[in-house]
């Protein structure tokens, strides 16, 4: 068992952290306020290899591991969790093409996705099917060498901005076995987008409904066979959950670091805040929780890299734990800042707002418990 990062892992993390410090952090508050998606900066990150971290390198990917990705997304999220998670969803959607697409499909889409000249979104959720995603109703009916797609996807990150939508559709009967995955170009006639949702956080990236009205999608754009779309969607989410967990850690670490700096200069009752033992214990607990979550996330990432049979359960556990810890640590950091923490210019309340949604998306933390308990109960039978 290896607990220290290797030299190359340290280099990967430092590169991403350097990028976050220089190119993301100084602008994060403004992007949040302006609801601006910084695609130019995101493409600069892609030029470093961050657009296809665990995509194979014959199509321009970096060919790195899930573990490396966890290091990168944590580091990027110290600058802005919303930007880091946008890149993480793109990586997840691109990986679904890499993992389940034919050589021809991989060559068609992945080179431009790795450079992020084109951006990908992941479309599973519908207005009537969130946690119960296998109940989705967007239908794709075969018509010659095309599918005719009708339905609506809800809450799609990057909706309206992305070029490519990896979309789970129903091609067969009810239930998970009737679902297929289609790669749909956003410019296809019959594809349209809802308004940019007004949200609590994640303002540096758009969230929109994606609407399909008789959109004709080539059968050649289907990933794998008919009926395996749900499996593809869930496989994507295993890695996606690690990435979102990593984004929570990065945001929370930044909030803790800001708190330590603030406690050094802020005085009350004639003492610096960092001289109060109650507050010293608070930061000790915050750092301990974060370290526990980080160590666990690394274990889950290593298990996914090793394709271990309990990897999905560990990914669900790590997502539940790290996103809860991340939110709590950020909220504690806000408390440590007193009233100033509530003001936007200190940058803490933005982190709290951004991290809140990590407990909801890519499977709510209740659904993580469903996944974990199902596996435990199956194992006990």
């Amino acid at each position, binding site marked *: 068992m290896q607990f220290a990062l290797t030299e190359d892992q340290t*280099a990967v993390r430092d590169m991403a952290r350097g990028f976050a410090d220089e190119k993301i952090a100084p602008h994060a508050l403004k992007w949040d306020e302006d609801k601006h998606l910084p695609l130019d900066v995101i493409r600069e990150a892609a030029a470093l290899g961050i657009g296809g971290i665990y995509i194979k390198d014959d199509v321009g990917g970096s060919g790195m591991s899930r573990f490396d990705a966890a290091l990168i997304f944590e580091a990027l999220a110290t600058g802005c969790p919303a930007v880091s998670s946008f890149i993480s969803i793109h990586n997840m959607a691109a990986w679904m093409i890499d993992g389940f697409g034919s050589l021809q499909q991989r060559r068609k889409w992945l080179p431009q996705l790795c450079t992020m000249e084109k951006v990908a979104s992941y479309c599973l959720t519908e207005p009537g099917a969130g946690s119960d995603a296998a109940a989705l109703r967007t239908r794709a009916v075969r018509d010659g060498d095309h599918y005719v797609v009708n339905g609506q996807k809800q809450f799609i990150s990057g909706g309206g901005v992305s070029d490519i939508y990896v979309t789970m559709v129903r091609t067969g009967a009810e239930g998970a076995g009737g679902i297929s995955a289609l790669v749909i170009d956003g410019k296809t006639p019959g594809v349209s987008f809802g308004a940019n949702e007004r949200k609590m956080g994640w303002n540096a990236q758009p969230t929109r409904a994606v609407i399909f009205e008789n959109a004709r999608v080539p059968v050649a754009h289907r990933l794998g066979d008919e009926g395996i779309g749900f499996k593809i969607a869930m496989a994507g989410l295993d890695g996606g959950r690690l990435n979102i967990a990593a984004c929570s850690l990065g945001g929370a670490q930044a909030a803790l670091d800001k708190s330590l700096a603030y406690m050094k200069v802020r005085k009350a009752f004639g003492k610096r805040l960092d001289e109060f033992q109650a507050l010293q214990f608070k930061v000790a607990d915050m750092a301990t929780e974060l370290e526990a979550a980080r160590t666990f996330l690394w274990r889950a990432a290593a298990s996914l890299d090793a394709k271990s049979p309990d990897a999905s359960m560990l990914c669900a556990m790590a997502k539940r734990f790290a996103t809860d810890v991340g939110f709590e640590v950020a909220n504690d950091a806000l408390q440590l800042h007193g009233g100033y923490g509530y003001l936007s210019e200190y940058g803490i309340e933005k982190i709290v707002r951004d991290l809140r949604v990590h407990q909801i998306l890519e499977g709510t933390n209740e659904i993580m418990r469903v996944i974990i308990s199902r596996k435990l109960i199956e194992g006990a039978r």
Partner: protein
Amino acid sequence: MSDTADLTFLQTLRRVLHQERQIESGTVIYNLPVPFGFRSS
């Protein structure tokens, strides 16, 4: 993806490390240019 000038930081890192291991094991003795860090050109 064979032209090293076109490699991203992460691709280069992976190749260089792979090569270092080969150098250590005595199979290869040449070097790739290493554009380390996004700041360097």
